[in-house]
């Protein structure tokens, strides 16, 4: 029997959740026995090469590319899991929600204290660049998400337990200390 296939991605996230996946320590060897990885920053496969069973999503949607990737994941994965606060509620990037995009861009590229030598007052406007959304959206407000793992990042034990439960079909153990929002 072929191994279940896992894909992962980081949308508007900081890669902290991916770090937490690696934080399962030596269980990573068991993980390799248990599953096969497809599109993921872990193995650097850029595009889906086959249908996957589980997609782990880190980060919310802050631009058109995030939405595109997320929809691609929904098409190619049987089960999608929102991993971490950003995927679940937008997280830190969502602090811009409520502030008009124009003001955000203005602050980031023209008025901000760390803006250095943008003397020509250029705003990034290349058609190759993804368009920024009006606000940051939690993943489940863009596509159907099957499971949510809270935390910033979710504890490695929580990610491990969830993956094993999904792969083996056993009921997931949720010890109190493992489900935390920070």
């Amino acid at each position, binding site marked *: 029997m072929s191994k279940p296939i896992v894909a992962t991605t980081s949308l508007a996230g900081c890669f902290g959740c991916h770090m937490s996946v690696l934080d399962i320590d030596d269980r990573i060897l068991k993980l390799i026995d248990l599953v096969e990885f497809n599109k993921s920053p872990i193995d650097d496969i850029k595009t889906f090469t086959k249908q996957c069973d589980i997609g782990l999503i880190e980060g919310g949607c802050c631009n058109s590319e995030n939405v595109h990737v997320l929809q691609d994941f929904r098409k190619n994965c049987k089960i999608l899991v929102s991993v971490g*606060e950003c995927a*679940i*509620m937008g997280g830190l990037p969502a602090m811009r929600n*409520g502030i008009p995009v124009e003001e955000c861009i203005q602050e980031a590229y023209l008025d901000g204290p760390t803006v250095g030598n943008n003397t020509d007052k250029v705003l990034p406007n290349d058609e190759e660049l993804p368009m920024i959304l009006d606000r940051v959206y*939690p993943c489940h*407000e863009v596509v159907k998400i099957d499971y949510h793992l809270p935390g910033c990042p979710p504890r490695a034990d929580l990610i491990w337990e969830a993956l094993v439960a999904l792969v083996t079909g056993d009921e997931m153990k949720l010890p109190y200390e493992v489900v*935390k*929002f*920070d």
Partner: protein
Amino acid sequence: MSIFKKLFGKKSSIGSAVEKKEEVKIEATVDSETKIEEDKEIKHKAMSEKIKFTIDGKECLADKGQNVLDAALDNGVYIPFLCHVRGVKQAGSCRVCNVKVAGRTMTACTTPVAPGMEVENETAELTDLRKAIIEALFVEGNHFCPACEKSGNCELQALAYKFEMMVPRFPYEFPQKAIDADNDKIMIERNRCILCKRCVRSFQDDQGRSYFAFNKRGHELEIKIDQEVAANLTDEKAQEIMDTCPVGALLKKEKGFDEPIGTRKFDKTPIGCDNI
């Protein structure tokens, strides 16, 4: 001679004062003795006047006039709540302590115990209702736990843990809220305020004036600090205010994060009777 008289006079006046004091003392002891006896009688009466009622079938005793929530806690039964503060007038504003009596849902904090009352507490229906309220509070504000000073000690978060909230069932509102940092000791982070009114009801100065009040109405309702009354807040009072706030809306200034993850109030122990 005049000096002697003066001395004598003084002496005599001192003597009479001592006598008077003794008299007063004797009266006082008589008073306190009768008071103790009266207290005993009252206590005895109160003991005999304890009201019997049940929570999920468990037999409980309550004092006359006591509310269901306090009585439950006294009997070791935890009913989840957010806005209630013991000894402070109840508001019934958070609705988390909803219980069911005779088929009707009512807030335990505002309902006095009645003899023979059968209270339903831990039912699937009530748990889901309470969870829904917690989820609604999460989407109504901007509760970004990883960046909150109160995380780990927050009662809203602890209840979300208790009900195993993985994601709210409602869409996020991302409201725009203003932060008020004008006071020297207290900062108001309205993004996290759940409008439970604990601060308004709990804190008054020596003239009975509230430090906090509600401002505006309806969807714009917000908590406001009275700068005049709160001008001379002490550090201790500011800490007490921060500890009373169930969320991270009232913060003591210049404090920040001082407890490592793993040692905070609700890191390892779920919210319940022992660690409210």
